[in-house]
């Protein structure tokens, strides 16, 4: 799964904490970035890296909402349904997404392009209703028409999930937002 360089980087990261388990979230993220979700093989590797048992890792994965144990579509779109987006019509956006993907929330769309999930506030309240693609790209000022268009575009795109790169550069590459 990981190259020797990536494994060295992960080991160094784990070892820079006083306790190795503090590096667990970072390593689980790295697995997820590689595979799309956290698979059994990834859990074995994280055990080797941090000493955490499978059960201890399951405790973390089931708690932290951005960690996924099950496969998802090529993209994951998190549509905010917290209050600021709710007052601006996020319920209609989620309903439209369910209709468009043809599957309930949390399931992989029929064409495999996307898994739509509800999300807690994304901090995009001034651009509500809003969503976040693959934990990176903001989708703002949505309406029923634009969410359908957006999902159509995702379905045409070949593969987007690994655009974050591997675990070794989880937060190492520049990703500054335009101020305009």
């Amino acid at each position, binding site marked *: 799964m990981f190259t020797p360089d990536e494994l060295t980087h992960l080991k160094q990261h784990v070892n820079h904490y006083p306790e190795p388990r503090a590096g667990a979230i970072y390593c689980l993220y790295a697995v997820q970035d590689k595979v799309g979700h956290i698979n059994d093989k990834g859990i074995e590797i994280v055990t080797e890296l941090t000493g955490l048992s499978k059960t201890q890792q399951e405790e973390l994965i089931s708690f932290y909402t951005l960690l996924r144990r099950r496969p998802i579509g090529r993209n994951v779109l998190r549509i905010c349904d917290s*209050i600021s987006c709710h007052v601006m019509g996020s319920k209609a956006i989620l309903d439209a997404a369910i209709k468009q993907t043809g599957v309930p929330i949390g399931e992989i769309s029929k064409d495999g392009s996307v898994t739509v999930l509800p999300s807690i506030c994304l901090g995009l309240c001034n651009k*509500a209703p809003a969503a976040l693609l693959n934990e990176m790209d903001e989708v703002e000022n949505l309406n029923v028409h634009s969410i359908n268009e957006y999902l159509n575009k995702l379905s045409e795109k070949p593969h987007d999930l690994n655009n974050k790169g591997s675990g070794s550069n989880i*937060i190492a590459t520049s990703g*500054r937002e335009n101020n305009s």
Partner: protein
Amino acid sequence: MDKILSRNFHHPHPLNIDEYQQAGGYRSLDSIIGQPRKELLATLKNSGLRGCGGAGFSTGLKWSFKAPDAPHPVYLVVNLDEAEPGSFKDRQVLYRDPHTIIEGVIASSYILEADKAFIFIRGEYRKGAQGLEAAVNEAKAAGLLGYNIRNSGWNLEIDVHLSAGRYICGEETALLNAIEGYRANPRAKPPFPIAKGLWGSPTIVNNVETICHVPFILHKGIEWFQNQGTNGAYGSHIFQVSGPVKNPGFFELPLGTTAREIIYEHAGGLLEGRELIGFLPGGASTQFMLPKDLDIPMHWDGPPTVGARLGTGGIIVMDDSLCPIDFMINLMQFFTRESCGFCTPCRDGLPFVKYQLEKFETGEADMTDIDTLRELCDIIYPNTFCAFAPGALMPIKSGMDKFETLFHQHIDNHGCTHPSHTPSTDAINNKVDC
């Protein structure tokens, strides 16, 4: 008022370290590093700076609780786990001016003699975390971080920590558990983190906006800082307005600016044809304020005069396009989902509150349900392990008081008759995990 935290927001891109320094950045460190820490702390204490994460506790006083002979390592943890619905101020600083955060962290860490600072960022702000990481590397290369900074004999490292979701991580002790690689369940207090925090060491946890104010107060002085506020408050604050207004956004204004000015002048007022019913002054876990409260100054002591609190200063506007009970159900849906599940009153009580509220919408409620709802709130409120559930119930308790007739109307009309009323999407409520 001078813009402080948002002074560089007009640039098309976040400034790199050279541009930031050319614009006067990091100059404050000249008047901080090497100075007696006691005096700096006294200045901070006397400035009146209060924690901007929502609690409003005196920052200088909090820091003075660190024992002078506290064992090392000492940690500073910057809370950038901004997940309070309606709040998006910390995001702006992170994405638009990461060096301002680093300058604040260096100044604060110097006063606290911290050996290491963790900047804890919510997973949804991953792109911002990447920008901050790049800025930290620039600061390291420029000798602003690392070993023996400016020949002061003091060392500092900054760790950008990307979290993986969950609102409860913003609670300071839950945040410490999250950094240590545990589930983010809050810890019992005492001991407070300042005595026993990360890995048992003294740890100071502060909101990022608070930290960003520190170097400016120490550099420009108490008088300057206090003059930035209005209506008896000190300093500036990034207010945020969301909901059905013409110009939703964030505005750095004097702390103490009235809600009317923020909503009607800066946010442009409500959308055409809409009527203001109420607003939450500082995020989802604050109490409702009404149109009659618009002239109350938005500072720490303003909203409490009408039974509310300033919170994060993230104003959520509620207009007549939505039923207030539906508004409250959405809030409870959020808190029900985000409860960490550790203690029973919160884990089982909050879904029950949501269920009780839904009965009013669907027409199943009768007069006894008003009493049941109040009783539930009274039982949950004082009996939870942390402040999460009391915060969750603040808008519900105040909503029941301020919109009481509405609850009676719902009973009389056998449900919600508001034009916006639609049944909730069961698929959303039943399918949230992946």
